[in-house]
């Protein structure tokens, strides 16, 4: 199973992919993840590859072999379409953060839905930011998206929730579990 999580610095992508990695290990899989960070805090694109199966060699997903793209920001979705395998699922958070050239009016924010639709019909939009805000903390949007992701993967909810609990400080544990459950209810 190959999952790409994509978005921008500060959206909790690294943590979300850490949780998925932990879930996969606890299910007995070999697992590897690779991400590009380092300049993420400075507004750059962030991408994390998570791979799990009986044995994983490369920590990065070859082009054309990604099963699920979990996108935290609309435009970021469009950057990774060439990684998708036929029949792959795309989950897109309905959230736009305009890149600098768009902010200053030099370029248009692209029609992401149109671009995605040309590639596949297997995509869904999720209002993760709004769901997180309705729970009172926008930062739990990553747990909302993990909830959605969990419905496309192993059904063992208990392991997911254990791993969220292990990876998060106690103060924000409950709200993240709530967010995860809200995500699971999203269809």
């Amino acid at each position, binding site marked *: 199973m190959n999952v790409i999580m994509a978005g*921008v610095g500060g959206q909790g992508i690294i943590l979300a992919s*850490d949780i998925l*990695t*932990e879930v996969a*290990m606890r299910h007995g899989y*070999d*697992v*590897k*993840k*690779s*991400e*590009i*960070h*380092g*300049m993420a*805090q*400075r*507004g*750059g*694109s962030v991408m994390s590859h998570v791979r799990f199966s009986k044995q*994983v*060699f*490369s*920590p*990065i997903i*070859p*082009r*054309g072999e990604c099963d699920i793209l979990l996108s935290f920001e609309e*435009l*970021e979705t*469009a*950057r990774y*379409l*060439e990684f998708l395998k036929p029949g792959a699922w795309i989950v897109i958070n309905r959230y736009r953060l*305009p*890149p*600098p*050239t*768009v*902010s*200053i*009016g030099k*370029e248009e*924010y*692209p029609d992401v839905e149109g*671009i995605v639709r040309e590639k596949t019909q297997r995509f869904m939009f999720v209002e993760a930011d709004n769901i997180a805000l309705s729970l009172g903390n926008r930062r739990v949007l990553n747990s909302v998206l993990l909830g959605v992701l969990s419905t496309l993967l192993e059904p063992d909810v208990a392991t997911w929730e254990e791993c969220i609990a292990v990876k998060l400080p106690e103060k924000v544990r409950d709200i993240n579990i709530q967010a995860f459950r809200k995500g699971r209810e999203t269809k």
Partner: protein
Amino acid sequence: MKKILSGNEAIARGAMEAGVRFASAYPGTPSTEILETIAKEFPQIHAEWTPNEKVALEVAAGASYAGARALAAMKHVGVNVAADPLMTLPYTYIRGGLVLVSADDPDLFSSQNEQDNRNYARFAKIPMMEPASSAEAKDFVKAAYRLSEEFSTPVMLRTTTRISHSKGIVELGEPEDPAEASLERHPAEWVMLPANARRRHPVIEDRLKRLTDFSNSSRFNFIEINDTSMGIIASGAAYQYAREAFPDASFLKLGLSYPIPDLLVREFAAKVKDLWIVEELDPFIENQVRELGIECHGKDRIPLCGELSPDIVRDAVLGAEKKGAKPLNLPVRPPNMCPGCPHRGILWALKKNKCFIAGDIGCYTLGFLPPLDAIDTCLCMGAGINHAHGMSKVLGDGKKKIAAVIGDSTFFHSGMTGLLNLAYNRGVALIVILDNRTTAMTGAQDHPGTGVTLDGSKNIDIDMEGLVRALGINWVQSIDPYDVAMARQKVKEALEQDGPAVIISSAPCALLPSRKVPGVPLRVDADKCTGCKVCLAIGCPSIEFKDKKAIILDTCTGCGICKAICPFDAIGGDV
């Protein structure tokens, strides 16, 4: 017990399990987390940030001479700084195991070049180990210490970004007891005068032969026979890519890639029909294989530049056309200086004074990007001051407005000698020290300027102005970079000096708890905004332009730099 660790975390864990007592580093992507993990999780190891990588390697060597196992970690270009001790250390008696971790950065995710540091192992005639996963990273560190002590040699362990920053499952082991430190004297092996060094050189050459024997029998080099029509020799991340791209091929996997196991290579080459060497960057293994008189494919097809991947390896070996749809033309999202970054104010002031700005390594290098377009050179740590001096001398001192900018951490790393030179040789240039009290680019590490060490204690307090004066600079002024008008005025004054001038632009990084920005967003008065776009020129990510007006987003920190430069007084709020 199994745990998911990054390559860097696994190296830290391996150091602990190996009984390492001393670890040193200067932060640098992708190596930084090695020391951070040691400091956080293994307080039994003395871990320290050093001002630069040369210091890091030398203090680690000192610990080794005293009988302790020691580790020095750095990014690939850091090894250049440490190259002086690295070249002579192999001549000396290595008492406690000494491991140098070099984290290379193929594809330049966060670096100024993509040099292949395996070449250093050959240059210094020391063993090179290349882990291909987190699990191997931990095991290899432990093996590297045994190797280092058995052969009395420093050992290099090379990761790449994909090894350092990828995570995988690691089986945790029990720690060994650290060796007791003790003072011994070995002048014939430690005092590298010509007479001693001359005697030590043949020792190295002999050791290299013995290391080749070791390489042939090492469990880190092994053959996996499968379909013999294709045989691949690979190491590090490239092994994983090749293994995935060609699951049916035969492999010779090299964990110890210098010196290569000559007998094993011959044995493998004899067993397979087509021999391929798959490696990232330089033909390091390939050249060693060819020196054995063995024909192979390698860099005739595998890219020399950038990192590899399973699909790149597959396409290169099969000679396939690069397939896939034409790339979409999407707006890019380059890293940018953060909202509230103090660098913006002083770079603006330099630009308004029409300076040529020699840059250096740090967040401020991002000031190169449009719309700020403020950085004119960036070579390596500490180079900016020296560029400015050299340019100024041949252009005629004072004839052109030449400035250099350098961060505080970079200044302590290798800027001080340049500034001393500027004063000593009476250069005329403006040097701006961007004193944001941290090593920001690598994620906010302390340094001698903050006086806070890796264990959180505060030992010294450096007076930056006093230090600059002590280096022979008479004109030194500290400014608040958020006061843009004052910054502009001070830059003008500095450029009028007929000798070296230093401005200390003093404000904590906007991401530090000690930051001086108010944290309350400013607002644009839409009635006053004429859409002149002056505020856009500082490249702040918190300013948008929509319907011919500037808009300030909630990410604004209220630093006030845009307010200060707005010609129509249209930006307001508490500053």
